[in-house]
């Protein structure tokens, strides 16, 4: 399969750079989106979810809270402030994030948009837990 570049950048450092990615599935704000080589230029947001990076030899999974994606000239850039390797997410960590999210949901002045994001977050995290 054709390969393209991927870079995941967090404010503190460059999280991951790969040049042999074949397909990346990202949790874009309006639904999951698969990206292959020669996708048209794209800018979008991420909602809480799992990034699935597939290359020839390996598949990497990351959990993200939010972020911005840009695809241009066969380079996919993901800017995110909160990203974890799924392998390193143990139950305690997941529980903690879920609890924070649930606390956020209980606030009175919560907007519909925020509620949607938090609901999504809890759903994704619960699915991680059950796996």
């Amino acid at each position, binding site marked *: 399969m054709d390969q393209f570049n991927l870079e995941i*950048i967090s404010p503190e450092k460059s999280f991951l750079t790969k040049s042999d990615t074949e397909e990346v599935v990202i949790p874009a704000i309006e639904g999951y989106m698969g990206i292959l080589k020669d996708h048209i*230029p794209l*800018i*979008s947001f991420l909602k809480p979810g799992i990034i699935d990076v597939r290359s020839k030899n390996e598949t990497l999974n990351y959990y993200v809270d939010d972020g911005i994606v840009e695809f241009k000239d066969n380079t996919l850039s993901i*800017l995110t402030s909160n990203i974890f390797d799924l392998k390193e997410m143990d139950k305690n960590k997941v529980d903690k994030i879920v609890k924070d999210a649930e606390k956020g949901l209980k606030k009175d002045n919560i907007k519909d948009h925020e509620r949607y994001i938090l609901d999504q977050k809890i759903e994704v995290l619960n699915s991680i837990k059950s796996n």
Partner: protein
Amino acid sequence: MPSLDDLRKRITSVKSTQKITKAMKMVAAAKLRKAQENAEKGRPYSEKMNNIILNLSAGVSDPQSAPKLLVGTGKEDVHLCVVLTSDRGLCGGFNSNIIKKAKNYFEKIQKEGKSLKIITVGSKGYDQLKRQYGKSIIENISFKESKNINYFDAAKVGNLIIEKFQNEEFDFCTIFFNKFKNVISQIPQAQQIIPLENENKDKDEKLKSNYEFEPDEDEILNNLLPKNISTQIFKAMLENSASEQGSRMTAMDNATRNAGDLVDKLTIQYNRSRQAAITKELIEIISGAESL
């Protein structure tokens, strides 16, 4: 003429000061490497963010409907200045350089008859500004407790600024910090973040790629611009911390060298006066013997 005892005490005191400055220099050197690394690692994020925004704003055709964070409120009455300094002293001209730059700007604004609001980040900046501009300082933030610079601290400042902007408390926002060039030179900078300053106004055609937006352009911009503010502040904080350590290292290096010079000078003086005392005693003895 100080007595021998005084001189000896002074030499010991200078020597122990020298030990302190030497230790501080070495600590700063170790921290500098880390801070510099962090500053360099943080650059891709803010650059990429800037790029995306440039691409987006290139596509904004109607300035009327564009987000206010990008184009401004249309007024120029109230200026908000965010002055980023360190929490610790003994770092040469690091804080004073930022303050000097900021004060110049403040004067300019006040001369133009516009009102001024100041947010200080870091206690040293607050200490230096409170006497002259105490009334204008609306917020004083300090991250003394955080060991490392992290994005969440920056986001706190960023959110505060955005909140104030949305309450229409100011029209312009500028941040002041030291840009790290190398160990001996740090350049105080003023960067305007609201409305966003477009450095290369005449964008080349390359920038105007036909992007697919999801959701639509406006929503992305509305979401991205507040994030960009936090990112810019984070970048400034990283640059600042590298500059602080670099500046402290040079300052302490100079102090150590000066202390060394001073010790040499005092030792010569000490030896001379010792010699003089001995000669004096000898003369007394000889002249005493002769008179017999």
